[in-house]
């Protein structure tokens, strides 16, 4: 690593967008009211859709399995409330598509007692049984990626996991869910760590936290159980440090090979909220029914961190917290990598870490696109040292194969740092998303012929 090993504790490049975290990071997690109608898509995760096992008109209890995993890379869905399956039909999701789903009408005045399943006993369970328990609980990456966690935890035969890395970075501006979870659910996190260490065979756990959450780091440090080999590491604030690859580099100075996974360098990374969920659900054999979400942004009246049932319609959420009547943009996730919502009838899913809302006047986004002046701001921002300027020019010429073969297009994980800094307002990361999808499609086509 030569010269750069002098700068430990962080990765190369990156950006510092305004954090806006002080608006919600002091607000404790609060239970959100239950809506009368829950809308549950069967696609809330990366992988195969879940398969429905209930029928219309059926009464279900809170925590009951509604859809089972549709394969290995898939995740089941549980009932977030006790109620009646009103309808099984297509439901809207954020991508703009319609997917099969359930309209679940909550029983009014129900005590909403949770139905427990078969517990996973930490002492006696084998790693395989823990992985099965994680899948059965419907757990996916709660940091936003929504990749089924059990798949990620499965260490391949020929590899070894020496470090379990907990991701408490939360580098997206505005979001404070992981911050609050670390402050308020420390016990669950350490229980989760026990399950995870057993499942992965990791000898040591490191919790990575950015310096703007020092209180969370101090709190976790103070309650580390004496028998657990856990370290808390605080790293300087920089976006996109929450990306697995950047986090591993910041803390361990290891580089995940291009096209590889963290396990290739002996690491499994799990988000802190996901870990807390595992620690809470597995001992009772429950499925995931709710999650913590930061609702914030200048257009929101009652900003905060809320525990919201999965499947709560977005419209209901915004009506409850109150939004400016000139609401114009709503993002699910943070403002850097989150997706803009076009339809308020979509619902909260497992991967929703935040909802950020703006009015038209509050969106200060320069519109005029200038030609690339090769100022190099994107080159200095790209955390994996791509040349976004060059890639952007090649994308304009539709030289997608060249971009992938000679300029490492496929390594781009779409953090958006290049677009953020570009003074010419070129939508670089959008170009790269499109280019990547073309390259993937071409690969599929060429593999068939």
């Amino acid at each position, binding site marked *: 690593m030569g010269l750069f090993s002098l700068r430990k504790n962080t990765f190369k490049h990156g950006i510092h967008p305004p954090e806006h975290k002080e608006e919600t990071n002091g607000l404790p997690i609060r239970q959100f009211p239950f809506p009368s109608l829950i809308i549950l898509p069967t696609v809330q995760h990366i992988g195969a859709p879940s398969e429905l096992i209930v029928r219309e008109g059926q009464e279900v209890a809170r925590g009951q399995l509604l859809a089972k995993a549709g394969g290995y890379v898939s995740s089941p869905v549980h009932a977030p409330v006790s109620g009646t399956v009103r309808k099984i039909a297509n439901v809207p999701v954020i991508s703009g598509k319609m997917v099969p789903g359930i309209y679940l009408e909550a029983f009014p005045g129900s005590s909403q007692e949770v139905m427990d399943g078969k517990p996973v006993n930490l002492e006696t369970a084998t790693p395989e049984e823990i992985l099965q328990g994680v899948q059965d609980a419907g757990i996916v990456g709660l940091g936003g990626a929504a990749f089924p966690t059990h798949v990620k935890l499965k260490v391949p035969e020929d590899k070894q996991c020496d470090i379990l890395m907990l991701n408490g970075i939360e580098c997206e501006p505005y979001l404070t869910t992981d911050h609050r979870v670390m402050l308020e659910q420390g016990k669950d996190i350490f229980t989760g760590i026990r399950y995870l260490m057993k499942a992965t065979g990791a000898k040591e756990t490191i919790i990575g936290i950015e310096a703007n959450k020092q209180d969370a780091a101090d709190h976790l440090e103070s309650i580390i159980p004496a028998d657990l080999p856990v370290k808390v590491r605080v790293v300087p604030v920089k976006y996109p440090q929450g990306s697995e690859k950047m986090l591993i580099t910041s803390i361990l100075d290891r580089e995940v090979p291009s096209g590889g996974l963290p396990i290739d360098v002996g690491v499994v990374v799990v988000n802190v909220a996901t870990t807390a969920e595992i620690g809470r659900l597995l001992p009772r054999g429950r499925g995931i029914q709710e999650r913590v979400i930061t609702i914030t942004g200048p257009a929101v009246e009652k900003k905060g961190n809320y525990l919201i049932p999965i499947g709560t319609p977005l419209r209901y959420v915004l009506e409850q917290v109150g939004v400016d009547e000139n609401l114009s943009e709503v993002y699910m996730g943070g403002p850097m990598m989150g997706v803009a919502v076009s339809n308020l009838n979509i619902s909260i899913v497992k991967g929703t870490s935040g909802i950020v809302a703006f009015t038209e006047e509050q969106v200060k986004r320069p519109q005029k696109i200038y030609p690339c002046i*090769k100022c*190099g701001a994107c*080159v200095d921002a790209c955390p994996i040292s791509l040349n976004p300027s060059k890639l952007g020019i090649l994308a304009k010429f539709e030289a997608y194969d060249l971009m992938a073969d000679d300029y490492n297009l496929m390594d781009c994980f779409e953090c958006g740092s290049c677009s953020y800094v570009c003074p*010419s307002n070129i939508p670089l990361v959008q170009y790269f998303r499109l280019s990547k999808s073309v390259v993937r499609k071409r690969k599929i086509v060429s593999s068939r012929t």
Partner: protein
Amino acid sequence: MLKKTLNISTSPHIKQALTTDEIMRNVVYALLPVAAFAVFSFGINALLVLVATTASAVLTEHLLCRLSNQESTISDWSAVITGLLLGLILPPAFPLWMAFAGGFISIALGKFIFGGLGYNVFNPALVGRAVLQAAFPVAITTWFPAFADNRFSEIAGSILTFPFMEPEFDAVTGATPLAAFKFDQVTTGTGELALGLVSGSIGETSAVLILLGGAYLVIRKMMNWRIPVAILATVYGLSGIFHLIDPQAYPEPLFMLFSGGLMIGAVFMATDMVASPITPAGATLYGILIGLLVVVIRLWGGLPEGVMYAILLANAVSPHIDNMIQPRVYGTTKD
């Protein structure tokens, strides 16, 4: 009830505020003290030349955009930079019609023909200056003394030369420090050079103000500091070595740094973002290359000054430097 339609955008949904036109406008701000000092030291003649080149550059850009049915791009301020820079590297009593032609050539041949802002291969102002030098070798090497008593009251005869006529220069001309050294082996003191108390092109004389302008842009992250640093360090180091070997034949390194167009070239010309490499290592290499060429041309070439050709040559090499030097991508072993 909530509004039915929402705006959608692709992520990232937030953006840093700095825009390209703002960068360009700030370059103009950084050049203003240099221009003001030039007017102070060379008087009304310098002002007229600066106005002529800037007006010509902006007008040319506007007209060419209109002629090619495009929206005028003068609001991005880049034409103003080109015009101003060109004026700053011309002699103070340069005929106005030639200055005007220079502005036109800079934009038309240096920039527009390549596709406008972002596509120029060479620094446009230097293209204009190179053409003027080839076309009007006498006018462009006829200097004018700094701080002449009548500089605010009299317009030099040569300035108002009728288009396409040979200008007649006043008898009094001031040799530049570089020419004095090259042809008469006379060195000028570094203090005088740094403060700009000497003769030369309109804006090249005050090294201090040029460096201040550069420092402003570097602090605001609108300039790649590696380029001027690499150029100046190379010139200083290399000419220092030669000066140590033979102090009679080769000038002191500080003289090399502060004389002629090196400062304005290193700070404002070589740093044209479009025409210089994009990676940190590439920019450093590019700066070293310019430094080398400047020393070679100045010490052994036929011309007293070599900055312009050094930068133009390096501009031509810049795309190749960018192709050659790519940063190592995370997770790869490929260089």
